[in-house]
């Protein structure tokens, strides 16, 4: 018995060494590119192009950020993205809650067919072109609404929300308030909403991050520079420029290129910093949301 546990003890030590090594390694692999991007954005263009930046900023300076912040399109993009994120998320929350509340009622007549009506759209969708034609015929193309209305509710999120309400608002509470003469609308505002605070937070974060990062819809439906969200400008600066600069690699352009390299890193930091700074504080809500979503209802 003693001998056996000794062997196991040794095995366990090896295991823990391997285990911590794996975790440390994976964490470093995630962390290093992020640190590199941030450090480069604070370094001087000459040193970056010479290849002197490995981990920490070299010749710390803010030249790149000065240029970025004086670039008009970044401000337009920021303003639009904030607008789309705030208004879009509010619409999302309103529609999702309106839908989830009645669907959480087991006594609702026609609940099964209505649920099928919603969830079928998760399995089958019309695809890009019919969607584009619809946006065109509704007159939504190249308006702000096209980023707000078509995605007003995610059926998946609605089901998550419905499951949450079902498990967190007890039936007894409904019965008691019905005896007190409370109708369904009052019950929603007085009882369901206050009890659903945590799921509302989760949904707001999911929807909000989605709006902040989305680029596809704007790319398809918007043509007007003043309506573009940040991600569209980012694509122009980060990805399209890549292809252009390879074509036009003349000497005059090379001089501008040095600073351009740093600019790219600055843009990445400026656009991603807000989410990454907030994230550690709201992390637990996000993870909670994943768990609520995994409960089948």
């Amino acid at each position, binding site marked *: 018995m003693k001998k056996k546990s000794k062997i196991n003890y040794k095995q366990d030590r090896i295991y823990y060494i391997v285990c911590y090594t794996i975790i440390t390694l994976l964490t470093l692999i995630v962390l290093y590119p992020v640190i590199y991007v941030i450090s480069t954005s604070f370094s001087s263009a000459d040193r970056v192009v010479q*290849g002197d930046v490995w981990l920490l900023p070299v010749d710390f300076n803010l030249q790149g950020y000065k240029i970025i912040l004086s670039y008009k399109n970044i401000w337009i993009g920021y303003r639009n993205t904030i607008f789309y994120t705030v208004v879009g998320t509010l619409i999302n929350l309103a529609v999702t809650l309106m839908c989830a509340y009645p669907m959480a009622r087991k006594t609702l*007549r026609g609940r099964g067919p209505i649920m099928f009506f919603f969830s079928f759209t998760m399995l089958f969708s019309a695809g890009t072109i019919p*969607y584009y034609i619809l946006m065109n015929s509704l007159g939504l193309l190249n308006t702000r609404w096209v980023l707000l209305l078509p995605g007003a509710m995610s059926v998946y999120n609605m089901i998550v929300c419905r499951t949450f309400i079902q498990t967190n608002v007890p039936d007894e509470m409904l019965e008691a308030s019905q005896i007190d003469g409370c109708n369904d*609308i009052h019950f929603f505002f007085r009882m369901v909403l206050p009890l659903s605070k945590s799921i509302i937070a989760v949904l707001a974060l999911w929807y909000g991050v989605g709006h902040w990062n989305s680029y596809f819809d704007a790319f398809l439906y918007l043509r007007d520079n003043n309506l573009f969200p940040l991600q569209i400008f980012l694509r122009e600066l*980060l990805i399209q420029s890549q292809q252009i600069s390879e074509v036009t690699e003349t000497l005059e352009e090379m001089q501008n290129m040095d600073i351009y390299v740093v600019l790219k890193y600055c843009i990445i930091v400026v656009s991603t910093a807000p989410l990454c700074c907030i994230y550690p504080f709201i992390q637990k809500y996000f993870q909670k949301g994943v768990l609520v979503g995994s409960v089948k209802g």
Partner: protein
Amino acid sequence: MRNKKISVGKTVKKRNPLKDWQLYLFLVIPVIYIIIFKYVPMGGLVIAFKDYKVRKGIWGSDWVGFENFVRFLSSYEFGRAVKNTLSLSIYSIVASFPFPIIFALVINSVRSEKFKKVTQTIVTMPHFISTVVLVGILFSVFHCRTGLYGNLLHTITGEYPDDLFASASNFRHFYIWSGVWQGFGWGSIIYTAALSGVDPTYHEAAQLDGASRIQRIVYVDLPAIVPTIITMLILRMGNVMSIGFEKVYLMQNSLNLSVSQTISTYVYKVGLSGGRSGDFSYATAIGLFNNVIEFFLVIIVNKISKTVSETSLW
């Protein structure tokens, strides 16, 4: 037992719908939304069987039957797009599936809560980087002259390497491994949660019987998350035909088209990239072809899993 049954029957008794009019009122806006933005475009799918002309409208255009489908199935692009879509998808499943599980298993055996918390926060963070920024980081860091990759090889060999993105053979690896980098931490959350539900007495009992830490992982932890693994795998298999448009399109260039042209990027190219002159009917037919296959895949995969493992999505 019998009493219980009766009481269950009582609670699900449907009420008079007139009494519930307020509940139906809540549903009005969501239902209208779903009809307009989800079901109406499904009606628009008829143009896949027509020769759609903008000035004639959806209903005024001429019927052509299955001509668009035949054209796609017999075209050169069909084989290429399907092959690229499936290869990306399957490669992605094989490469990205094990990492979240491994990470969850090892992080679960860490005793220091602080270490756990810090590492988990770091590895989940990339989930919130947008696709555009991710591809931007990829291009910048692996740039052959000014990026980390170029610098590293320059320091070692004294010469700048070739452009990695100019070669078609690298496209898939970049696409997949940047996805693993971004997603494995987030993907591990669901497994970590399943592991935290494991009854600690199982571990204690195994320890008393002299099981080592590795044995406890194999015989206690792993069986506990097998249902979750199967569910996640089903979900993933059902989506094997849908490779998102965004990232592929952003990473696409004329040099890697032979491996990066997927069904969704081809639909875009045919239908929308040429402005108003796009071939809407043809593009719709390709999209419909893809969505129908996807639809049946989800249903079949779900049915298989229901009989094999008794886990299903509905």
